[in-house]
């Protein structure tokens, strides 16, 4: 404990000295630092901040020091996060390398590969995107067809990926490719890192119903990939994929939590419901009650479920701490419920706002109103991306309920 107190003191002091004033201001949407070879910094201080944090490995605080990580313990990291919060420091780096690839490399890559790739992730030198889904393989990811042909010292990759976020701005892509037979489909898949700075790789943005999106299609046309870019064994990529998908599911499940849930009652403070407050603005109130009784009932149902859901996430985390277990198949329930709940949240907002929620662009609507409309459309993808709701229900039935197949 004494050590931890020292760590807190040191951290405080370091941040005081090294976190630039500009980096303590609230972030705008354009202020995210994604790293990469051609990294664009919104401000010179952002560059400084990334360099300093990267140097200490604090962009990835708990990763091993030998690969450039911070090497912090669980408790130390908790302190670091608290102190970062205390000075309202912006994240120095946002990166799919940190969120997705890094943990997979730490678990599955060779020593040489770890040395080569992880430090660059920590420092934000390379911007990564993920290439799993293909036009023909949505829920049935393992039916993927992008092919990597063995050409002696390299693979020749041909095929197409979809839903590759920010692919048009990325340096490298981590992909699942087929190196073996189509059947049994899980056995012929490999996990490959591909440099996108070559003529054989091209990207095309995907327009969504909500408008522009960070998603792209990525095409491989005789893309050349050195053999040493294979992670784990040949044809063993599905193990890596499963781990990554589970991780992704947990991330997305969290989305069901924001906004609409009624806040916890604080001593002597009135309780409130974000959704209801908003609804009152648009639908009016009578004697303190939301004027539209049908809408009021729906919001109460939503708030109750939303509260129950976040409570369940909390309970699951308390229980898993207690039993020291990793993510359970019940994470499918969180993915399912969280994304369905988020869709419902926006449907209710639309209902509350009436015609004010029907704008696309231009005059007549406030920016917040237009943003809600776009986000409403965006939420329709929540129950599809990272495994559809149907797939989650299948998983629950199979793995949790143990129903016959």
């Amino acid at each position: 404990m004494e050590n931890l107190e020292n760590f807190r003191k040191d951290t405080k002091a370091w941040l005081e000295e090294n976190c630039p004033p500009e980096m303590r201001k609230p972030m705008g949407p354009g202020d995210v630092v994604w790293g990469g070879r051609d990294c664009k910094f919104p401000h010179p201080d952002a560059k400084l901040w990334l360099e300093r944090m990267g140097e200490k490995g604090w962009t990835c605080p708990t990763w091993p020091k030998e690969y450039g990580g911070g090497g912090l313990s669980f408790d130390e990291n908790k302190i670091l996060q608290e102190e970062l919060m205390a000075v309202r420091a912006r994240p120095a780096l946002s990166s799919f390398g940190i969120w997705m690839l890094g943990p997979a490399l730490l678990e599955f890559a060779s020593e040489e590969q770890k040395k080569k790739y992880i430090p660059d992730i920590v420092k934000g030198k390379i911007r990564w995107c993920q290439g799993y889904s293909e036009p023909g393989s949505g829920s049935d990811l393992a039916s993927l067809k992008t092919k990597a042909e063995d050409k002696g010292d390299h693979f020749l990759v041909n095929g197409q990926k979809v839903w590759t976020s920010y692919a048009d701005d990325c340096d490298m892509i981590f992909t699942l490719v087929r190196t073996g037979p189509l059947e049994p489909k899980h056995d012929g898949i490999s996990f490959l890192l591909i440099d996108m700075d070559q003529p054989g790789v091209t990207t095309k943005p995907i327009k969504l119903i909500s408008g522009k999106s960070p998603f792209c299609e990525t095409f491989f046309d005789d893309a050349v990939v050195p053999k040493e870019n294979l992670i784990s064994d040949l044809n063993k990529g599905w193990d890596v994929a499963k781990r990554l998908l589970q991780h992704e599911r947990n991330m997305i499940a969290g989305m069901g939590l924001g906004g609409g849930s009624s806040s916890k009652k604080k001593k002597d403070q009135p309780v409130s419901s974000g959704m209801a407050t908003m609804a009152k603005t648009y639908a009016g109130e009578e004697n303190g009650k939301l004027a539209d009784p049908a809408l009021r009932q729906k919001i109460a149902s939503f708030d109750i479920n939303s509260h129950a859901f976040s409570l369940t996430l909390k309970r699951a985390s308390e229980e898993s701490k207690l039993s020291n277990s990793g993510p359970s198949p019940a994470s499918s329930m969180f993915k399912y419920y969280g994304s369905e709940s988020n869709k419902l949240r926006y449907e209710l907002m639309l209902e509350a706002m009436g015609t004010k929620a029907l704008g696309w662009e231009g005059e007549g609507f406030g920016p917040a109103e237009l943003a809600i409309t776009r986000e409403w459309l965006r939420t329709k993808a929540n129950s599809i991306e990272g495994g559809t709701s149907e797939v989650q229900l299948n998983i629950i039935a199979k793995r949790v309920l143990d129903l016959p197949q």
Partner: protein
Amino acid sequence: MSLILNEEQIFLKDSAKKFAAEKTPTKHFREIRDSEISNCYDEKVWSEMVSLGWTGILVPEEYGGSNFGVAGISSILEELGRTLTPSPLFSTAVVGVSLIKHANEEIKKEILSKVVQTGLKLSFAIEESNRHAPLNISCLAEKAGEDYIIKGEKSFVLDGGFADKFIVATRTSKNPGDKTGISLFIIDSDSKGLEVTPTKMVDSRNAANIKFNEVKVHSSRMIGDEGQGFEVIESVLDISRAAISAEMLGGALEAYEITIDYLKEREQFGSKIGSFQALQHRAAIMFSELELCKSCVVESITSFDEGGNDSERLASLAKAKVGEVFHLISNESVQMHGGVGVTDEYDIGLYLKRARVAEQIFGNSDYHKNRYAELTGY
């Protein structure tokens, strides 16, 4: 009430189906949407609709119309709804014409014949808040000699961005919420003091916000008697609700059929996804709900022409039911399409957008459930 269309109505429906397939497939909607035309309708297509006589379907023969009735125009709208055909047909030929039919002989002669012959475009300015509330009219019309001076604002004025004439619901006496004291005026779109701000909706249609900065209108341009506008409004709204329900039914049917086709075609895990029982049951439920919608719509649209005495209630019933089902179908359709369902490239998302806008036109489902209960005495 007949639950089956007559030959005349079937003929109109078939013509519209052919028209939509040839002239206004969803590609047509996309082209307009992606063009610089902010009006979201195509002059040429409009002219063709006019020359087919569609703007005159609710117009009595003496003014050049065919008087084919609400069921006739609604059957056309159902087919056009399938391909999301953008046009001022609903605003003009249903809402506008129905309003003008309550005006004096002179106005009818003048306006109805122009609607039939040249496709004069009408638009109804009624809403003032973010939800349908036909009684809550505070837009003021003050008498000044032979004129009235209109002050106030209107919003969600359908097709208001390019209308030639507006019919405006104003208050000439009493307070907002009162059934009497509401008067209707016809205003030219180039009137002095009229400030029209077109808005671009999520379904890429056009609606407008309108400001009346002391717009002067002659008292002869009033529809019906002073202060007696509400009865006209309610009867026109019910016709319009029935007709828009038909359009929504068309959209829901098309979205459903696109999705059923997709279920038969898309493979996952080595099978057509339509063979998965969970999706089959959801599809079968959609089918059942649509069958109910078809019945409500046909009953509602024929009730006006057959002089039924329950048209208000049937209109609310149809709008409430179809609104809910289009909502369900549009959500289910996108979900069953998976990833491609949320891309702009596929048509299915367009129905999702249209469903939500149409849902709000002249009262959403909850509004009409409430009205249905009231009209039924509870």
